[in-house]
């Protein structure tokens, strides 16, 4: 009798354990890497909404590093170690092609129902292109981005100045305002001079504005004169006192912080900065204007194409669930949610004129043509080397350790080694 009872209890216990572990098996844990500068707090809310719709999925957020390269260094380490701890990661627009070449991401072609090319048509063309390699969809857009010129609306109005169309006008406007304001802490212009990814765009903005390309048909098409002019333009801002002396120490988020503290008249930055300028900690709330970047004299205005993409790790143990989750993150709904709550530009063209979006971020309606005409940094598997050459040269010229001429010469010979 007692023996039977014990056996029954044991069996019942075993059954319970088994069913519990079956339930556990259904529960999927996804670990997602988000760049710390792109509002992980707001992404968390988007993840929460997914968890509410899919009770069997639990999303953990991981974040680290405050620049694109610091994050790439971390992810490169995880990927070379074939570490399965990360399922989904956010990648700077320049990286999906590299990650696909290294075999670190899984293509989405199988989970996308139907024709992949047709599916990608819903995004802005630049992002459909950046995420497709040889017909394979290697990542899906998280948000679009481009560089803009932020300016202090209040100060420009006070001194009767229109937003500048050329860099020369910007210099003149800065000098006028700085002289009149007599504030020793006020800088005319803040941009990225530290040897970070943003400094690549710093170099390319005037270079592109002169109508020159860095790479054409996979071959280096370096124009040395344009490179010298571009480097000289930035160095002159420092020498004329428009930009601060230690601009070579300034990274993207430093520009954002200094502008937000009210110490900058003009700033070159990405769209994410807007949300923080309008936030409760901002000294410049409601005093900020955004326009397209100035051009060089006689040139066309040019912006640098940014944006970040969601990739699924090839070493993830939950690839299917992770891909489903990324499809949600890259949907028009999430895109709208992030535009309204975090001022991240949508990768969907129709969202720029969506009334809910324009109510929260009025300037997005004018941002669309800027994003559409923004130029992409060269696409090559050896992009990291190209980037390193450009950003260290920009940094050295701004610090005054190299002249613009020497810098352009070094840049050319080093680029030739990489892009033969």
């Amino acid at each position: 009798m007692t023996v039977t009872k014990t056996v029954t209890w044991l069996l019942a216990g075993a059954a319970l354990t088994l069913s519990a572990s079956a339930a556990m098996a259904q529960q999927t844990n996804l670990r997602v890497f988000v760049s710390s500068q792109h509002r992980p707090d707001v992404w968390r809310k988007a993840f929460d909404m997914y968890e509410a719709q899919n009770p069997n999925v639990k999303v953990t957020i991981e974040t680290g590093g405050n620049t694109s390269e610091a994050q790439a260094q971390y992810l490169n380490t995880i990927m070379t170690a074939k570490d399965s701890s990360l399922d989904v990661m956010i990648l700077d627009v320049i990286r999906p092609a590299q990650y696909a070449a290294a075999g670190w991401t899984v293509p989405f072609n199988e989970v996308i129902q139907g024709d992949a090319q047709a599916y990608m048509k819903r995004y802005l063309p630049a992002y459909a292109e950046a995420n497709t390699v040889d017909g394979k969809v290697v990542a899906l857009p998280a948000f679009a981005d481009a560089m803009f010129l932020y300016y202090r609306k209040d100060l420009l109005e006070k001194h009767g100045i229109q937003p500048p169309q050329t860099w020369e006008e910007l210099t003149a406007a800065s000098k006028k305002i700085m002289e009149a304001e007599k504030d020793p802490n006020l800088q005319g212009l803040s941009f990225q001079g530290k040897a970070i990814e943003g400094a690549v765009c710093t170099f390319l903005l005037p270079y592109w504005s002169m109508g020159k390309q860095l790479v054409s048909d996979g071959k280096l098409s370096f124009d040395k004169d344009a490179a010298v002019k571009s480097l000289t333009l930035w160095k002159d801002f420092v020498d004329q006192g428009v930009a601060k002396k230690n601009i070579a120490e300034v990274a993207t988020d430093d520009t954002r912080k200094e502008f937000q503290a009210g110490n900058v008249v003009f700033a070159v930055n990405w769209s994410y900065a807007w949300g923080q300028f309008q936030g409760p900690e901002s000294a410049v709330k409601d005093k900020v204007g955004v326009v397209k970047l100035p051009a060089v004299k006689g040139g066309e205005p040019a912006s640098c194409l940014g944006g970040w993409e969601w990739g699924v790790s090839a070493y993830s143990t939950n690839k299917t669930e992770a891909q489903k989750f990324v499809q949600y993150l890259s949907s028009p709904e999430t895109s709208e949610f992030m535009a309204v709550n975090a001022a991240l530009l949508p990768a969907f063209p129709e969202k720029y004129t969506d009334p809910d979006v324009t109510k929260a971020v009025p300037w997005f309606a004018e941002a669309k043509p800027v994003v559409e005409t923004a130029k992409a940094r060269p696409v090559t598997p050896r992009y990291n080397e190209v980037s390193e050459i450009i950003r260290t040269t920009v940094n050295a010229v701004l610090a005054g350790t190299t002249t613009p001429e020497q810098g352009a010469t070094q840049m050319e010979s080093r680029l030739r080694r990489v892009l033969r």
Partner: protein
Amino acid sequence: MATASETGIITAHREGATKWWTRFLDPSERTLAALLLAPTALLLSLIIVYPVCRLVWTSFQNLSLTSGLPAEFAGLENYRLMIDDPVFWETTWNTVLITLITVPGALLVGLGLALMANMPFRLKWPVRLSLLIPWALPLSFAGLIFAWFFHSEYGVVNDVLRRVGIEGIIWFNSANWAFAAICLTIIWKTSSFMALIILAGLQTIPRSLYEAAEVDGAGRFRQFFEITLPLLKPAIVVALIFRTITALQTFDIPFTMTRGGPGTSTATLAMYIHQNTVDFLDLGYGSALAVVMFLLSMCVTFVYLRMIRAKG
């Protein structure tokens, strides 16, 4: 014909040789020796010999993870690329310069610290503890702490300079000042290690020597140069070997302080290796650079070992 004495020497020599050989050939002892050595040999080959061989092999290959191509044998191609790579030469020169500045610098400061710590204090432990702190601090922490010290706007160094009426320096905006800041940090960080070894050496010098010197009328300076310094030589050479090898591998402090900037003016060879392997994923070229650094370290060690042998 050999003379009797000569034969004697030869026999004695042969006997000695026989003894030595028998000891080696004695099966039981040989087995025991092999058994005792095996774990170490195995461990060493696993963690040193295999990786080094693998490294050398990779350095002869075209192996870049971003190319999507499989590894292929490239002979000396990676080494040839190094010759006209300006960044390789610049980083190597920076590494040599850091070694030439910080090793003697740390030796001088370390010697001073050790002499002070060896003075007859009543409370010796607080002095020795404070001597240990920089040594116990992780390198990257030291780099980050000093990066803040030297920060142009918020740093304590410029604050002190301004208080005494000197215009602050934008340390990391100039190749020379950034280099100076890095060298100062490295000297601060490593001189306590030098001091520890030298302090140990100081304590082996018998007091009686100083007493005798005093009786003979030698002054303090004379005592230092005639007794302390010569007897400290072995300790100093050991400290120098360790310090030079770690100086050739300098990575953490410049990486955390300047990331090699402005431009590449404070980047070291170790940082360039890290950049090629971790950032550029060019394992072939990175390995070739690492082989060069390995050879550089080997050369220095060899020179020091020769010095010790010559002294011994």
